[in-house]
């Protein structure tokens, strides 16, 4: 084995309330393609952010050795100078600038105080040749497809004389032929002496390209495997091999009868991204049932939920939605709400709550009609109702007049839940209901869900946490690249089966 170009020793990183990494050891040999795999939240991205200096030296413990020397990166510039470049899932290009401007952005070729554009264009051309991208360097980046944009990112990294290239899920938004091109390119760069680390969820791809694979789980290094020992089954086993602790409330599961929601052949196409988001999605939800939607981040589950909820932003929809047997078309979330559907967003702060308003105003917002008389809000009833939800959901806040922005994540989530329970829905869609909240609050949310279905509500739970999906759902649909790739009953589902269906591309 050649000498390691990178060694990360005993790396630990804590976020408030969460230990994201626990004594992780990670070694990359000179000139190899090293894949990093693990479930959502296993710590892959955190580890790479430490390596690239996003989390500065001092905010974590442990050592980074690059080319045998200890490195203390205080920011991303420092890591770039030593030859480490990272390419994120969301590309960091400026759409309205040309390819050559983007490639040399931040390290322009100077001529005194001025930019030497001729040299820039010439060098950009050379970089594009290296990544086998045949476009005019003067093309604007927004006019390129997403696959080509990714190549521009790589060209940008190469122009900085990169020695270690990190790619965070580079193929997640690419189609098949673009993905193939990218993998071929990585091999060629390897021949030119560039070492790469690739984070990926697509295990077939990992097996195809990796020289070495490291598996992370719950912030710990589980195994480092070489190319000849990896197999899909082994990787899945290492990724999910945790025991399910019995933190899930027990619940009587019976055969459910009445279908409350049926989705038939739902398709969604996003014209500005130029790709299909949902492909022939069909499923059913019965009264009193909890169904889980498992899958990886970006597989299209949130888009599916928003399509049902009448808020498909930026994409075209076709297909049929039936509520209690009647065909419905929702042109705005308000129609969905009136029909008895509630959607608790995955992004509390982004589009779930109004942080500058208080608890009572957030809870009443989606159903002000109920507490208003001829359009005039009865504020006393509002306080009363808010207090009711505060007690029922045990929201920890000094009063319902407290601004939601001052509450903890778990309590914000409960306010969000209270808001949507107040619209008195029959169908509750929960999108990542326990993301970023602590174990105690998680259990409370599960208990609330159990109570709700007992009262006859039906719940769709979107979750990237497999134990949660297994622990709470009656049936599980697995979504990958906008398609339902499998349906499992709670009896037959295992983490391995779900992960295997979620990683089929």
């Amino acid at each position, binding site marked *: 084995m050649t000498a390691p170009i990178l060694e990360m020793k005993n790396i630990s990183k804590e976020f408030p309330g969460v230990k994201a990494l626990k004594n992780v050891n990670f070694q990359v040999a000179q000139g190899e393609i090293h894949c990093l795999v693990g479930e959502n939240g296993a710590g892959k991205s955190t580890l790479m952010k430490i390596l690239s200096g996003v989390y500065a030296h001092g905010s974590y413990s442990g050592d980074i050795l690059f080319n045998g020397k200890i490195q203390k990166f205080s920011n991303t510039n420092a890591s770039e100078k030593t030859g480490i470049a990272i390419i994120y899932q969301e590309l960091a290009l400026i759409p309205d600038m040309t390819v050559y401007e983007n490639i040399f952005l931040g390290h322009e070729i100077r001529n005194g105080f001025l930019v030497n554009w001729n040299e820039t264009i010439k060098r950009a051309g050379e970089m594009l040749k290296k990544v086998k991208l045949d476009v005019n360097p003067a093309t604007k980046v927004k006019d390129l497809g997403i696959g080509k944009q990714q190549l521009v990112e790589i060209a940008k990294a190469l122009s900085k004389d990169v020695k270690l290239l990190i790619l965070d899920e580079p193929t997640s938004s690419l189609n098949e032929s673009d993905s193939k091109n990218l993998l071929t390119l990585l091999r060629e760069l390897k021949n030119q002496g560039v070492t790469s680390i690739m984070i990926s969820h697509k295990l077939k791809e990992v097996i195809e390209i990796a020289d070495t694979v490291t598996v992370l789980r719950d912030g710990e290094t589980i195994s480092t495997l070489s190319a000849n020992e990896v197999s899909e089954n082994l990787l899945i086993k290492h990724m999910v091999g945790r025991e399910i602790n019995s933190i899930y409330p027990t619940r009587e599961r019976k055969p459910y009868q009445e279908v409350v929601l049926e989705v038939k052949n739902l398709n969604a196409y996003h014209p500005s991204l130029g790709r299909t988001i949902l492909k022939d999605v069909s499923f059913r939800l019965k009264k009193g049932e909890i169904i889980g939607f498992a899958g990886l981040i970006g597989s299209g589950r949130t888009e599916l939920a928003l399509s049902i909820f009448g808020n498909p932003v930026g994409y075209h929809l076709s297909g049929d939605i039936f509520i209690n047997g009647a065909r419905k078309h929702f042109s705005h979330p308000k129609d969905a709400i009136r029909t008895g559907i509630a959607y608790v*967003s995955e992004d509390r702060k982004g589009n779930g709550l109004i*942080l500058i308003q208080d608890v009572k105003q957030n809870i009443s917002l989606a159903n002000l009609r109920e507490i208003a008389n001829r359009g005039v809000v009865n504020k*006393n009833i509002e306080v009363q109702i808010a207090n009711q939800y505060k007690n029922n959901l045990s929201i920890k806040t000094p009063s319902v007049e407290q601004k939601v922005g001052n509450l903890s994540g778990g309590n914000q989530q409960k306010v969000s839940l209270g808001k949507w329970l107040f619209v008195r829905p029959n169908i509750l869609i929960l999108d990542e209901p326990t993301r970023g909240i602590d174990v105690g609050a998680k259990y409370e949310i599960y208990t609330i869900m159990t109570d709700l279905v007992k009262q006859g509500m039906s719940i769709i739970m979107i979750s990237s946490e497999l134990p949660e999906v297994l622990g709470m759902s009656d049936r599980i649909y697995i979504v990958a690249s906008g398609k339902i790739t499998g349906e499992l009953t709670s009896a037959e589902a295992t983490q391995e089966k779900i992960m295997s269906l979620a990683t089929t591309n």
Partner: protein
Amino acid sequence: MTFFYNARKVLQQNIREYGMYIALFVIMVIFTITTNGTFISSRNIVNLINQTGYIAVLAVGMTLIIIIRQIDLSVGFLAGFLGAIAAIAMSDPRVVANGLNLPVYVVIPLTLCLGIMAGLVTGFLVAQMKIPSFVASLAGWLIYRGAILVVTESTGTIIIANDAFNAIGNGFIPDIPDIGILPGVHKLTLILGVLAVVLLVINELNDRRKKQSYNFEVLPTEIFALKLIFLAAIIGGITWILAGYQGLSWTAVIVLLVTLIYNFVMSQTILGRHIYAVGGNPDAAELSGISVKRLIYVVFGSMGMLSALSGILFASRLQSATTTAGTLFELDAIAAAYVGGVSAAGGVGKVVGSIIGALVMTSLTSGMNLMGIGISYQYIVRGAVLAAAVIFDVTTRGKS
């Protein structure tokens, strides 16, 4: 002891809200002293209110616009343009070429409707065409500026000869016949003032009783009493000052009505809640079943209507429509809203605050005029006050 403790607690909790009132009070005291009492004289206060009127109504509309994270630069010249339209509509065709000789009671609603339509056009550009409101309303600024010049091209300044119309900006409410007591005092104004105090007390007591019936926390009795006495004293004081001259002006009545209606809508109704929600987080509002587009139309429509009202007030005050009417009104209105505590980030602000903001700005002008301070220094002082108000707002917001 508990009294002082309670009083301090209430003050601390509401310092942001009371800050503007305190500022206005301080400014008035300073000018009263520096002008040997001329500033607080009945005549000057009445003048000051009438001067504030056409900016105040714009500031009310602008408050809503800024709350939903937009801006409207077109309102000044729109007001000027609609003032000219109203003047032409009322004029005798023998005097003004396109005059329609329409009566006042037709002209005013017509002008307000035109204002709403103009506002909806801006709303269309913002909501439907997704043009940033700064740009959309800047286009309006240019267009209406040109439009004023077009309609006044042949005539220049249009003199308004209609007495009823001119009373809006210069007249006062009539008095009851003299019955021998309190000579030289406007008695109807006094009666209205007393009525206002009575209504306020009844309303506050009612509210308190309702809250108690729900077992909610209410202000301690002595603080509540103090608050009522304080508010009654302010209303009483203003009434007394106004009654000492010619009483309540029609402009004051209009501004008062607009403020009461908008304050009610914003604080008590579903529509108001939706406006604050859209300003606080448009994405969350949309997902909560609120049509953000519809609200943009409503808010810009209201702004257009208030621009028309502002145009009417201004034309009436000058008894004419001039070619430069409306110049810089929009910036005065925006400044008034910011001084009044509206947040540039959206979702925060009160209509009453903006009215106080407008009063602060006009008080500065009026006071400095009386002191004989030159116009150049007046601009600098007003700029400094605007900056100070926003600094106060931003720093106290971080703490609560």
